[in-house]
């Protein structure tokens, strides 16, 4: 386990408190490209709004910099931990995901929120497990595969809890 060295104290770039700063994070430009890959799946509402109602900081999904400012509100100083990721791959995935976004997003949310009460049939679980096995064949899980699995869960009546259990069983 590696803990990064402190490099700087948290500062809010736009004069607001930075919750990330409180948690030991500082905004960096390196990860800005990382978020591009899932833009196609994003809804306009922005999930952050859902999580900020009672929080000390207003979470905004309008931009990444603004999100960080929200975290800055917590006012904790800490070192910078920058992300390392490739932007080119994300762009390719984003283009691929544009076709499926609108169709799959909303149904998926509804499906995942269903309780475990509607447990999937053994055959469905086995079928889903087979799909699950294939997505990691290449050694990496990408957004398109996750979207595929979400659709399969919906089709087969697999709950997210069952999905997590299957993943645990498969990888554990």
């Amino acid at each position, binding site marked *: 386990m*590696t803990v990064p060295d402190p490099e700087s104290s948290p500062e809010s770039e736009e004069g607001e408190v930075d919750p990330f700063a409180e*948690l030991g994070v500082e905004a*960096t430009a390196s*990860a800005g490209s990382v978020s591009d890959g899932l833009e196609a799946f994003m*809804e306009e509402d922005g999930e952050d709004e859902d999580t*900020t109602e009672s929080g000390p900081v207003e979470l905004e*999904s309008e931009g990444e910099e603004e999100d960080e400012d929200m975290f800055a509100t917590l006012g904790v100083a800490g070192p910078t931990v920058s992300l390392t990721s490739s932007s080119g791959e994300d762009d390719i995935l984003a283009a691929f995901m544009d076709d499926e976004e609108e169709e799959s997003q909303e149904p998926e949310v509804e499906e*995942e929120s269903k309780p475990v009460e509607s447990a999937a049939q053994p055959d469905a679980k086995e079928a889903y497990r087979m799909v699950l096995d294939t997505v990691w064949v290449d050694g990496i899980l990408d957004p398109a595969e996750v979207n595929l699995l979400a659709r399969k869960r919906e089709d087969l009546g697999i709950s997210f809890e069952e999905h997590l259990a299957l993943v645990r069983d498969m990888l*554990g």
Partner: protein
Amino acid sequence: MTATEFAQLDALQTALGLSDSARAEIESKYEEALVVGNAPKGESAESLVEWIDAVRALKSVHPDISSGLARRLGATALRAGIPPCGYIVAYDWMTQLGLDRPFAEGAWMVGGVAPALNSVPLALAPVAHTLNLID
């Protein structure tokens, strides 16, 4: 190991809600690794203190914020591509922090797509490392 460092570990145990028996088991395994010679070493006492403080801060903030961070970390990892071994280790880490569910939801795009993180909270740096998000 100094008394201050012991105190910091006590603080970490409290922050994580770790039982004495669970902590003893972890420390016992580490001691065994020390004997064998393959025990991982941290950077410094200062970095340990800083990280523990970060964990305590993460545990003390409003659950919406910590859950939001976990969710976004999962989504950020997905954008970069998640290796299976990295996922399961990260998931276990997040379980220790009580953030496994939002992390998984972010990684599996459940409930919508979370925005990516521009940088990772220090408390979650080890998790981000296992996901190859940071060096």
